[in-house]
């Protein structure tokens, strides 16, 4: 490809260079102790704010007799348990009722394989 026809390649190379240089500059800046301190303080503040919001929402939901997120989580966990038990029952029934109709277990392979010799590896 001639240089004059490489305009798309030049653009791609420029993009990669910009990515590398910008990543380096931004990560170098984030390695500064002050940046790290401010970043962690902000994260802790957001976490505390979120906790307070969560508590406020929880109180409101209780006031209106509505289920909270925690209630849904508990419900989901119970449903998951029930689903797992149903799965176990289904597997047991399959084995007990129609062992020949259920997809037969594939034959177990022999555990006798030897590694290829160095000259036949590939």
């Amino acid at each position, binding site marked *: *490809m*001639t*240089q*004059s*026809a490489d*305009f*798309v390649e030049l653009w*791609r190379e420029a*993009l*990669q260079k*910009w*990515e590398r240089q*910008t*990543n380096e500059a*931004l*990560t170098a800046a*984030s*390695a500064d*102790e002050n940046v*790290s*301190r401010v*970043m*962690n*303080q902000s*994260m*802790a503040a957001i*976490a*505390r704010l*979120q*906790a307070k919001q969560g508590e406020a929402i929880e109180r409101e939901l209780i006031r209106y007799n509505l289920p909270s997120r*925690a209630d849904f*989580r508990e419900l*989901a*966990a119970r449903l998951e348990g029930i689903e*797992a038990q149903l799965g176990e029952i289904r597997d047991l029934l399959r084995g007990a009722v129609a062992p020949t109709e259920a997809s037969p277990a*594939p034959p*177990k*392979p*022999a*555990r*006798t*394989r*030897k*590694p*290829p010799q160095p000259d036949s*590896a590939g």
Partner: protein
Amino acid sequence: MSEATAAPDVVARLQAEIQRAQARNIKGWNYLVSAGPQRGVTPKDVVLNRGTLSLYHYRAQVSEVYRTPVLFVMATTNRAFIFDLAPGQSFVEFLLQRGYDVYVIDWNPPREDEKRLGFEDYILDFIPACVAEVQARSGEDQVSVVGYCMGGVLALMYAALHGEGQVRNLTCFTTPFNWSNFGLFNRWADPRHFDVDTILDTFGNMPADLISASFDMLRPVSKAVSQVQLWDNMWNDEFVKSYRAFDRWGAETLPLAGEYFRQTVKELMFGNKLYTGELEIGGRRVDVGAITASFLHVVAEHDHIVPIEASRELVERVGSADKEQIVLKGGHVSLIAGPNAVRRLWPRLDAWLAPRSA
């Protein structure tokens, strides 16, 4: 070069770019309206499922397998389908066809009530339960354990505490050991500023988006650039297929169980206790020098998540007589999946593991 010869080149290049632009429009529309590629499709059975823990057993694809089964321990931050990305791009499929009996530990997002799970649960309960299941199914006493990233740390801890002949071979991929050499993560998780207790007391488990954001911050503009590269390559079906598979995997970062994350930060990141030999799990000291299984550590030359400085000392400290470290070209993810892995890691692992599996 004369202007007369350069001009047709420019015209031909412009024509090619116009055709690609048309293809981008058509395929870009398809990209937006179609579902992502299927992942994790190699036939398997879920043989253990307990909350955050799932154990898969992949169905054999050959009639004769090596005696020793292989158990993969996935990193706790991501789903294990990175080992089974797509037919033809699947590490698991490759190993099955090379004659291995493959099991994979995958992690589900921990539920609210699993926030108290800690190292003790993973090392003294989950992994031993999986090894027992593998032993029962295979009829073999010994297994080969392969851990990736934090899965490698868990595999190390397990092998150090359960080295009584159950682990025949231990392989770690890009596994951090000297946590004081973690680079930017050390700066961001400075114990003077990083209040892990406030975060976990608020959220219970460590939220996935915070973990994902910290990974993105290691290369702040790369995500945006990758979108541009996707547009540029929208005409290329193979590129788009591969992009979607990796993008989907990256987007499915998992939350971490609260106590497990607290221990990771305090014991490993702040205290560097795995390296100093002071880490205790269930009252027992974790000493990697106690590991006697054949040991292989594969590290990536351009790993931006686990820098080579954080992982390279591991091989010296493991007690095994038969041990080796190899450094391969690639990054944290391209080491194990994608064209780089197909060419480099997969055949190297097979060559190392085969004579140790018969």
